[in-house]
């Protein structure tokens, strides 16, 4: 079987894999950043869980930067 004739199918398969895995990684990363930002924003406005330790302003800023 001629490899050159079918190279397009092989390349398309690997490109599809890169695209699917890439989308998953970007989705997980962006979602993590978004949730951290929302949490930091709520904490900055004084909305905290009852079980969460009180956080200082610099700590909140640090969390926002990390997010």
């Amino acid at each position: 079987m001629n490899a050159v004739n079918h190279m397009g199918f092989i390349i398309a398969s690997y490109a599809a894999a890169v695209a699917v895995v890439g989308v998953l990684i970007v989705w997980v990363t962006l979602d993590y950043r978004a949730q951290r930002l929302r949490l930091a924003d709520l904490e900055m406005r004084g909305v905290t869980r009852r079980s969460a330790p009180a956080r200082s302003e610099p700590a909140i800023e640090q969390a926002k930067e990390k997010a």
Partner: protein
Amino acid sequence: MAIADLANPTRFLKFADRTIPWLGGLTVIVFAYGIDQAMLAPDDYQQGATVKIMFLHVPSAWLGMLGWGVMSVAALGTLVWRHPLADVAAKAAAPIGAAFTLLCLVTGSLWGRPEWGTYWVWDARLTSELVLLLLYLGVIALWRTVEDPSRAARAAAILTLVGAIDLPIIKFSVDWWNTLHQGASVFRIGGSTINSSILIPLFIMAAAFTLLFFTLHLAAMRNEILRRRVRTLRLMQASAVS
């Protein structure tokens, strides 16, 4: 840390923060080795170079099924044991499993064209795999439709357990029906029919894909826990205002 301790979301978040970078690093290393071995593997005597597609297609198919398997165990955790992280695990696994099932169908189609002369045929294996993708999309839609996560979890758990019937159908479809798709060639009674020069790279790629699955799953679970915290805080904020 005992496994039971991970039932506590805060402890789980700490565990995830520590584990994800290591698991991600290991995934990259195993992928690099796996792709290297896959590219060095010889062409198949019948299929030629298109056998390289197998190193993506077969692990994707396994992980599509593994994803639903993880969701099924988590569904039992939701309905029977009422484990606090069970529905988090199920919800986080659904998009990842769906993505691998889609990749399996796409690579299978691209492999089918040069081998069978067609991108698609409604045979039992391909159809049952497509049903799995539709089941994934159904569960994802259900999660998005029901506002309350605990109610959504119970509904999704029931759908997941019903959908688990598709897993043995996918596995044994090539034995039960006369299909265009080839029969079992890796895990079968009497041993694999694939030569070790191709089988070993396949297993390395499968290990890499599995590591990727669990890295993404852990990260998605972490995101889901954070999302629920945001939801709880917003509800607290709304009730304080009203």
